[in-house]
């Protein structure tokens, strides 16, 4: 093909780019990277800390919450077991995240590298989903036991009309929905911006394999 041969010839002509000396290159080795992997790493650490704090802090910060929780878990063994499982899950996510970050290698093929990065993002996504589910159940269980152990509240509840009950459920569902949508938008924004180009290029590579 003539045109491309012409291009090839021109392309391989001695470079018109500036030639850096060793003296120029040395300082470059010690500059900070601004790659998406590094940003993703910081985001995942921030997410782990944030969601762990969200789920753990009420227990340490509020004595009444602690008392209520102790009341719910009248059985100490169950309490210890639940705690062990939840901390176990946090450690499992930390381990998976660490492993996924370690697996990201710039010397892999383009497709493999993109997949490793997307896998890391997926792990953190599962961690957030796990925390949302836990928060949701904690809220439901909290309300249930709160009502059960609070005679005044349970009396009000028993006396409420169907319409009032319906309204109460609607408000609760509404609040939960707004909360979930805000979090979902927040993630869309953060990861959407960060991984837009990666996703586009990954899709392009996928398309080639169809």
């Amino acid at each position: 093909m003539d045109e491309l041969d012409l291009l090839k010839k021109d392309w391989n002509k001695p470079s018109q780019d500036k030639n850096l000396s060793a003296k120029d290159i040395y300082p470059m080795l010690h500059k900070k990277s601004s790659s998406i992997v590094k940003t993703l790493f910081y985001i995942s650490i921030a997410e782990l800390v944030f969601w762990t704090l969200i789920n753990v802090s009420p227990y340490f910060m509020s004595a009444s919450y602690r008392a209520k929780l102790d009341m719910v878990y009248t059985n100490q063994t169950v309490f210890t077991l639940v705690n062990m499982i939840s901390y176990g899950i946090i450690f499992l996510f930390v381990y998976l995240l660490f492993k996924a970050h370690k697996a990201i290698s710039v010397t892999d093929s383009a497709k493999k590298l993109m997949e490793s990065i997307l896998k890391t993002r997926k792990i953190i996504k599962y961690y957030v989903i796990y925390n949302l589910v836990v928060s949701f159940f904690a809220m439901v269980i909290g309300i249930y036991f709160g009502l059960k152990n609070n005679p005044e509240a349970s009396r009000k509840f028993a006396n409420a009309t169907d319409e009032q009950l319906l309204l109460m459920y609607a408000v609760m569902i509404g609040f939960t929905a707004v909360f979930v949508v805000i979090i979902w938008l927040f993630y869309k924004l953060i990861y959407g911006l960060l991984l837009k180009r990666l996703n586009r290029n990954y899709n392009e590579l996928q398309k080639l394999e169809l």
Partner: protein
Amino acid sequence: MNKELEHSFVELLEKHQNIAHKVCRLYTNNYDAHNDLFQEITIQLWRAYPKFRGDAKFSTWMYRVALNTAITLYRKSKRTINTQDFSGVEFKIKSEDYDNTEEEQLKVLYKAIRQLNDIDKALIFLYLEDKDYREISETLGISEVNARVKMNRIKTKLKTILNP
């Protein structure tokens, strides 16, 4: 990292820097972005260098790291796009631009290449660097057959632009 390692790395990069410059030229369109991407490629190469095994050629290894940085890891291009254009290349292609002289042909070809998406750019880059389809497919992580099919499509596309 010891000084010896640093020294051997800088020596190799100095010798093969042209590869990184070419990638930068293809994926950025101004001087600042070019330097920015070159810097990031250098960091990525240096980080991966301790795992570099002498059995692969440094240049072959460098193609992969440089392209991966440009396609996947680099995230500053948006910020610096559309400032002064050091190559003097315009972005809109019109068939009237076509002139039969070699220089004009090249100008139009370079314009066309700059409009390709990141993956197509990588394919054409490796082709221009005389890489065979095995190496192209391994670098991008696609099958050799698909690399060949896609390359032919890009060639046809460029040909059509030159001969509307």
